[in-house]
């Protein structure tokens, strides 16, 4: 068994190596760019969304992208439409799209925020969130928070808090602590803080 596995791995690696050498045109399947272009109708040109419920995915961390797509494919996130779309793609295609969006510059739209809330959010962020969502939640391995569309963030937090989406490791502890610190408005304050950044 094990031997077969490693054998087929060898064969696969060999094939991959050969494929890498071939020009892109010979490769079967649409290019990462072609795949990613189809997302623009919902997520904006090159992933810079202008619609507040659709998250910006330009400049997104590619591994976070792939994780998200895989979770959607497995119906692991409170699904609306992405789960249906994600089922159409292979892991390899996820990766190619991930690289495409990681190569794009994120254009943020200004959002209207409550300055007082945002200020409190900034403090809460520094205290509870900054270590994972570094630099105020700039795009990174913990996703894109800074400048992200607030309705989208709202939905996401709703899903976490209602148990519709699994918490990332350690995040529940931190959010609980933030809520304990600042009451029920803590999440809202944080979202306003993120929305206030561009």
């Amino acid at each position: 068994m094990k031997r077969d596995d490693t054998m087929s791995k060898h064969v696969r690696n060999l094939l991959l190596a050969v494929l890498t050498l071939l020009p892109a045109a010979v490769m079967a399947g649409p290019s990462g760019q072609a795949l990613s272009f189809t997302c623009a109708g919902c997520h904006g040109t090159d992933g810079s969304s202008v619609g507040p419920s659709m998250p910006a995915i330009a400049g997104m961390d590619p591994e976070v992208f792939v994780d998200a797509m895989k979770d959607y494919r497995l119906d692991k996130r409170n699904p609306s439409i992405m789960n249906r779309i994600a089922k159409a793609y292979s892991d390899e295609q996820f990766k190619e799209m991930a690289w495409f969006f990681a190569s794009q510059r994120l254009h943020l739209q200004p959002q209207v925020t409550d300055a007082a809330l945002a200020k409190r959010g900034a403090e809460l962020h520094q205290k509870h969130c900054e270590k994972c969502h570094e630099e105020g939640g700039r795009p990174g391995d913990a996703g894109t928070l800074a400048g992200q569309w607030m309705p989208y963030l709202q939905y996401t937090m709703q899903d976490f808090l209602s148990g519709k989406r699994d918490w990332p490791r350690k995040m529940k502890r931190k959010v609980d602590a933030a809520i304990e610190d600042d009451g029920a408005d803590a999440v809202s304050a944080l979202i306003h803080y993120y929305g206030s950044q561009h």
Partner: protein
Amino acid sequence: MTNIDRRAFIRGAAGIAALGVSAGFPALVLGAARRVVVVGGGVGGATAAKYLRKLDDTISVTLIERKPSYTSCFMSNEVLSGERTLQSLTFGYDGLRRHGIEVVQDTAVGIDPLQKIVQTAGGGKFQYDACVVSPGIGFKWEAIGGYTEEVAATTVPHAWNAGPQTELLRRQIEAMPEGGRVIISAPPNPFKCPPGPYERASQIAMYCKHHKPRAKIIILDPKDAFSKQGLYLEGWRKLYGYGTDNSMIEWISAAGGGKIEEIDPETLTVQAEIEEFQGDVVNIIPPQKAGAIAFAADLVEGDWCPVDKRTFESTRHKGIYVLGDASSAAKMPKSAYAANSQAKVCAAAIVNRFRGLEPGDPTFVNTCYSVVGEDFGISVAAVYGLNSHTNTIEPIPNSGGVSPANASAEIRKREVSYAHSWFKNVISDMLE
């Protein structure tokens, strides 16, 4: 744990590099700058124009559109419920001009595929290396007795291209007495925006629920099934009493005699197969075919324009590409998102052709939201690939589909907000 492997990275990086190279590709190498003439400034045409420039800004792109601005058909049903104004659906072409596209307000009247010239009503002649034709739909006026372009403009609007007729229909509904009856005649397949007639009924019902709660909306349908049917019925049951005696919406299928034969615009009486229906407001959505220029340029077989699905190049004339509703792009629906998606495939194919490269494998997506009522949105989505053996665009198996049945109120509500965000992004992707 995800590992972005090297191959994916290289492909990604190569894509970026290709863009970078193309941006600075000297015209000398390619000879004179390549010219693309795009006929039609709808989703297909505008998107194609923008993405051509995005993929290769050495290409000179001219967009010929008869109207000074674009009014989106999608979301225009919300005008009927009063949720939005027609103005909110209208956008100029300055965004495209900022991409370096020459936008010409004129009407294309002919295309010479040999000399590669597009001729306009205003007397313009536009030389092209590739021509993209995205004219949208035309109507088969002859299909319904008594229904003419003039009738549509004055008393029985089709309102199937957003514009004055949309506002006319809105005014008629507002003017309708309480307890009045709205008749909507849905078209046979294939037609633009398959869920549209049913969303229209929903949006009118949404208005009536608050302002004319005893009003009736009857959909006369020459089909026995329609897009997102289960979800519509779920929404109608929940919001408009569908299935009860007091249902605000009634759907009469082909089997029930829903196909109409003629209309009397004077009495607003519609003759259907089995019985006559008289309404206070009548909205006839006629059977459809490709837009006029497609016929003038000899791109049509039957009602629609056959194309090579890999490139959207017309199978009748080389160098001319037909996109969107006018093309025969089964199994994709005739929708805004589909046109947007096709336009990008087509733009990439044209750029590749100019560079002497084979077109890549195409990939398409369609997403479509419908707002059935307050806080009740539904959607359909599909990802498509090309079956090159049959030259058909086929959905990727085990993916796509409509919103789940009996979803939570939260999900339905979110889909309304997604619908509006979707709208902004589609508009932005084609025009900004």
